[in-house]
């Protein structure tokens, strides 16, 4: 796992690559889970604001990383994208078509193009099915994706593609290690040749040594199949390794977004800075010079978020303005027109650059 920047990676501008059409556009996505009381006659007493106004674009062939701590709504975003939950408000546009309103045949058709890799390889594979059945299930659900006689061969090809022995086709998931299971999950996601893969913390349940293999496999597959990834994680170093652009989430909102180098080396939002200051630094000398930002308190309840800026209860810069005025996710005025790496959207009234990750040469 490397924390060094990836010099070989092209660096798209903060707003994405101009000239290219985004494959997925998310606009004003909101998901509130109602809190109800009563058994038969339910009345709503509030709502958990799991996702509260999220916008982003995903371009063909790129990886968008979403980071944030537990409970910030990352996984809910993934479920909304997969249509496993219905959004309260907002749009999810796949090639211009709002997929959150689809159902039946049209939804099934769209599902072929957006697939998911799950977090826990121990619960995402049905223990009663063989690997061949698990990876072959997409073909059974979409019979036109592969003719019947060819399915077994296709499954074996997929096993080969993810680096597993094609002869394992008749084995059960419990006969595999965590990393191997996650490869099976990836093979299932690839079966329908999707354009987008939503990966919800795909490596956080794995050993560190295996994480790198799975992430590298995903990078290789991205090149091979021209995939777009929406890569959700709480591990900042992994996201930096794989992502082209990064969005930082806090309490249901994206607080800062931009190219990976801009976010990691020139963060302007205090929450991003605090997150980055917690990343382990392998270089002991650099470690001594860096500043650790320790946030006090817990994440506020998403059922009752603070007024104004959602981060203000834990922010060391919070002032009166933060209580009253909700900072929009735009390029802060101080950086506008500087054309520097700090010129990227950041939802803070008092955004300023602070280098928190020491550069190790």
């Amino acid at each position: 796992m490397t924390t060094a920047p990836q010099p070989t990676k092209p660096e798209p501008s903060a707003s994405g690559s101009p000239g290219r059409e985004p494959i997925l556009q998310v606009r004003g996505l909101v998901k509130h889970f109602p809190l109800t009381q009563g058994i038969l006659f339910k009345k709503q007493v509030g709502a958990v604001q799991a996702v509260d106004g999220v916008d982003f674009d995903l371009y063909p062939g790129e990886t968008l990383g979403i980071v944030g701590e537990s409970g910030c709504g990352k996984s809910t975003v993934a479920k909304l994208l997969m249509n496993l939950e219905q959004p309260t408000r907002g749009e999810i546009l796949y090639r211009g078509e709002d997929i959150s309103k689809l159902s039946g045949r049209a939804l099934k058709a769209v599902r072929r193009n957006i697939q998911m890799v799950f977090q826990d390889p121990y619960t995402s594979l049905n223990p009663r099915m063989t690997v061949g059945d698990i990876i072959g299930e997409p073909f059974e659900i979409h019979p036109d994706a592969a003719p019947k006689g060819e399915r077994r061969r296709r499954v074996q090809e997929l096993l080969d593609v993810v680096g597993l022995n094609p002869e394992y086709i008749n084995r059960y998931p419990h006969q595999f290690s965590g990393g191997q299971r996650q490869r099976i999950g990836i093979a299932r996601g690839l079966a329908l040749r999707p354009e987008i893969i939503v990966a919800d913390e795909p490596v956080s349940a794995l050993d560190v040594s295996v994480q790198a293999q799975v992430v590298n496999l995903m990078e290789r597959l991205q090149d091979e199949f021209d995939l777009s990834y929406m890569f959700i994680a709480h591990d900042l170093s992994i996201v930096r390794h794989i992502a082209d652009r990064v969005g930082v989430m806090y309490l249901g909102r994206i607080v800062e977004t931009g190219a990976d180098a801009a976010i990691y080396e020139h963060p302007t939002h205090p929450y991003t800075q605090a997150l980055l200051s917690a990343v382990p630094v392998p270089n002991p000398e650099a470690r001594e010079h860096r500043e650790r930002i320790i946030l006090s308190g817990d994440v506020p309840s998403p059922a009752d978020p603070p007024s104004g800026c959602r981060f203000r209860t834990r922010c060391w810069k919070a002032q009166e303005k933060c209580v009253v005025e909700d900072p929009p996710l735009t390029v802060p005025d101080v950086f506008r027109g500087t054309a520097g790496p700090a010129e990227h959207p950041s939802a803070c009234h008092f955004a300023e650059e602070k280098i928190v990750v020491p550069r190790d040469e």
Partner: protein
Amino acid sequence: MPDTNPIDPEQGPIAPGGGYGGGMDLAASDAEALEREPGHGQEPGGPTGKPRSLWSDAWRDLRRNPIFIISVLIILFLIFISLWPGTIATQDPLAANLSKSQAGPEPGHPFGFDSQGRDVYTRVVYGARASVTVGVCATLGVVLLGSVLGGLAGFFGGWWDAILSRISDIFFGIPVVLGGLVFLSVVTNSTVWPVIGFMVLLGWPQIARIARGSVITARQNDYVQAARALGAGNSRMLLRHIAPNAVAPVIVVGTIALGTYIALEATLSYLGVGLKPPTVSWGIDISDASNQIRNAPHMLLWPAGALSITVLAFIMLGDAVRDALDPKLR
């Protein structure tokens, strides 16, 4: 309910002879081959010592459990004599010889005679058929009806769930014996079927609740979400993904309930509303013998003993299966 259990260090690699037939055997011989996985990205360590399936683990536990062995032997014997009672009892259970009324044991009649002068041993053997039929059929009916209704309620939720849960509450509220007295006293059919029908009618909510709960648990598993993300329909998710993973608690409770249904049949027959003569049943014989207990205790003790052993065998089996399927006990 988690389907895999944590790694058991004592379990070693993969023991031969587990469930899943070929799959398991293959694993044992191929454990090393897995380590030599070709191509990119090798994980350290193959699948050795990895969790096995719930069913093969349970089967391995059960085979070593003496309670399971004993109860299975008793049950197999019961099934055998209820299918072919003539093989061990050569006399006619209805043949009466009033001169022998309430007589004690004598050669050829080891358990003695009842009030009508019928052979008690023969009647005990023939009585197994009624008990086993009622127990097995009532359990099958309850499990089928209860798991279908409860499973659908758990899967779809919402109004269907709310209505079904309230209906099952109503049936839970009916006292079984009182309900039996009222319901079965108006039935004139003397076969086992009204009794079975009554038990299914009152028994399904118990299984429905358990099935509902385990379907709700299974429904939240990632692999069900994965199937939905692939575009799977409700029937595929229910039949392929949820049902196989939610069935274990239903089997356990059904096995235990089987014993109690046999006891309930005897209770209802004793009260005169269950099976009726000329059907041979332990409950009827216990009922007849109960007022002669001082004169001829053997008339009561043999059918009552047979009933107790049968009920005990099924409850022991259920208990053993529950222990084997409960991951928390590992």
